[in-house]
């Protein structure tokens, strides 16, 4: 059977074994060590039960306006565009725009703002070779005539002026300014939710998927790209091109072999995680099937789409470009959700993050988006494989030779 032969070819490749090693290392150093000891029931006599994010308009508005005034006064705004730290200083025009918005928020005019700044506490912070003033505001409040909706609009405008990724990005307001301590009852409920609602295995499987999903957003592309480029590298192309098999069947068989073979190591880590769960939580009622069904539905679409991207881009350009494209996509996906490690599952994000054993309710709130997301990526993967088969067929009939970016005849070289 051709499928098994292709699986064997994948399993014999060096990149596949590197993939396995990376996957194993990441599994044991992240997930396995994190859940080595079971979570214990919160005690009524603890001092700190952690915090939780709530959307409290008063808290958000108070926190945001004081933070904004401080950054405005020092003209130094901390932003994280794509997850990277960036200190933004505004030019006069933009600064005036921000001031107008602050005036609207506080119901104060230019002189009033200047007065606030004069009275503010100033700390001088050394950063690298320079020193800058850090203004601290604690007493600013948003004018009561400004509704919460208008406040959010203004925050959005300020975030746009700052280039995005600021503390005032509307989606991040609650996360940045509205954290409240959890009570014993809340902490207990979180724990009970984890234990009872879908038993501990539901929580464990989500954490497992969070960690493994980060790896699978990138490393399958190495195997897929190397495998797709193997015929050319081994000078097999013409021997394969001249066979009777259709391009669609060959591409799909190879794709299925790649996905299946790459899923096997994931399955093995799933088994290890399930065994670990049964040992750590022995005595608890566990739904063991969740250790397999959740990761399969969560992670398989990711392997599918990353493999499909690897195959398609390798057919059009080269294996190197495929790795670069997937690398950029994975990086953006990882960084775009860097502020919130749970409860931030979107319809189109490549990685679905839920880096906690708790907050099941936050996951369930986005469950529909999660299901949509995974089905979307499965379908997208199949579309990309069809496109890869189409390109393969063009190349096979001598109608397309691929696009070279670098080297002799490369389009980037020619421009240079």
């Amino acid at each position, binding site marked *: 059977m*051709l499928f098994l*032969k292709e699986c064997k070819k994948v399993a014999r490749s060096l990149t596949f074994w590197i993939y396995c090693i990376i996957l194993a290392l990441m599994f044991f150093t992240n997930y396995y060590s994190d859940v080595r000891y079971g979570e214990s029931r919160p005690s009524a006599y603890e001092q700190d039960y952690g915090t939780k994010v709530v959307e409290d308009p008063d808290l958000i508005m108070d926190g945001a306006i004081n933070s904004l005034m401080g950054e405005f006064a020092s003209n130094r705004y901390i932003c994280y565009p794509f997850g990277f730290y960036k200190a933004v200083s505004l030019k006069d025009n933009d600064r005036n725009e921000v001031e107008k918005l602050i005036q609207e928020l506080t119901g104060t005019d230019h002189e009033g703002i200047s007065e606030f700044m004069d009275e503010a506490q100033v700390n001088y912070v050394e950063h690298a070779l320079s020193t800058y003033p850090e203004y601290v505001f604690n007493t600013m409040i948003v004018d009561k005539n400004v509704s919460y909706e208008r406040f959010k609009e203004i925050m959005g405008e300020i975030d746009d002026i700052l280039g995005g990724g600021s503390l005032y990005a509307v989606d991040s307001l609650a996360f940045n300014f509205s954290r409240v301590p959890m009570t014993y009852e809340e902490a207990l409920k979180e724990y009970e939710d984890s234990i009872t609602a879908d038993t501990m295995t539901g929580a464990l499987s989500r954490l497992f998927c969070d960690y493994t999903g980060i790896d699978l957003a990138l490393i399958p592309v190495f195997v897929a790209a190397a495998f797709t480029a193997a015929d050319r590298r081994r000078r097999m192309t013409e021997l394969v091109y001249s066979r*009777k098999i259709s391009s669609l069947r060959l591409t799909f068989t190879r794709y299925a072999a790649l996905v299946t073979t790459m899923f096997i190591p994931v399955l093995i880590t799933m088994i290890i995680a399930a065994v670990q769960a049964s040992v750590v939580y022995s005595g608890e009622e566990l739904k063991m099937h969740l250790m397999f069904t959740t990761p399969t539905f969560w992670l398989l679409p990711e392997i599918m789409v990353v493999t499909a991207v690897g195959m398609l881009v390798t057919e059009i350009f080269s294996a190197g470009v495929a790795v670069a494209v997937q690398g950029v996509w994975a990086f953006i996906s990882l960084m775009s959700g860097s502020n919130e490690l749970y409860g931030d599952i979107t319809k189109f994000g490549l990685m679905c993050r839920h880096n906690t054993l708790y907050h099941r309710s936050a996951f369930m709130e986005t469950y529909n988006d999660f299901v949509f997301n995974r089905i979307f990526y499965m379908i997208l993967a199949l579309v990309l494989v069809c496109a890869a088969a189409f390109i393969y067929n063009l190349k096979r009939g*001598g109608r397309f030779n691929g696009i070279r970016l670098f080297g002799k005849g490369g389009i980037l070289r020619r421009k240079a």
Partner: protein
Amino acid sequence: MDNKIVIRKMNKFYGSKQALFDIDLTIEQGMFGLLGRNGAGKTTLMKTLAAIHKKKNGKISVCGIPIEKESEIRAMTGYLPQDFSMYPNMKTDEALDYLGALSGIPKAERKKRVDSLLRKVNLNEHRHKKVKELSGGMKRRLGIAQALIHDPKVLIVDEPTAGLDPEERIRFRNLLCEVAENRIVILSTHIVADIEASCEQVAIMDSGKILWNGTVQQLLDNARGHIYTANVEKQFLPQIKKEYIVTGILPQNEFTTVRLVSDAEPDLPNAVMTEPDLEGAYMYCLHSSGCEVKGGEE
């Protein structure tokens, strides 16, 4: 279904550069030699016939099937490229079996064919060796076996003997003659001896054009009266090489016997007309077609 390949007014371009010009050829069952210099367009023609290159215009039919029906053409064609290899870590029989699977042969039949072909190409005792452990000649024989795995009506072999030692070359040619008994075999080469030893029909290509098409005997007849030998003193050799197309130099005791191509009787002492050999006939064909020929010139 007719058992021949018919090519009519076929042109092929690489981008804006024309690689093949108005090719007209009819190739019948048996061994057909395609002779030409490196870069003459032989490989392009072979790839076009194997349906892995697309022609610009003209017509090609393979055993009655238009070349546009790529799947059917591939099913009836076996192709051995000039520059090929196989997955180095696969065993010999495994590589053959894999390519058989790509040709859509059922498992049971594939097993029989792999066994029989490995015996035919004398690789049976090396069947468990990895491809990377095979010598150049063995790889070429494995190449022939893979091209025959689906029992094609047409076998296209591109420069199969390049780089082989004389013994392997003879063995390979004999193998080709064996398999040509009931199919069309197109042998593309720049080595005249390969054509001489195995083909009845021959076409000569240069710069993307067919210069000659006919039997080997007709090619020899065409050169009759233009091949000479002469015994000359060694010191005159550089001068002779400049003036004539020298196809052979045989040093004797006191003088050197040169074999040369000339339109008219050469102005050399002792020059005598001689029976043409295929190498001389090939050189004469190139020369009479207006190609620049540098036989012997340094």
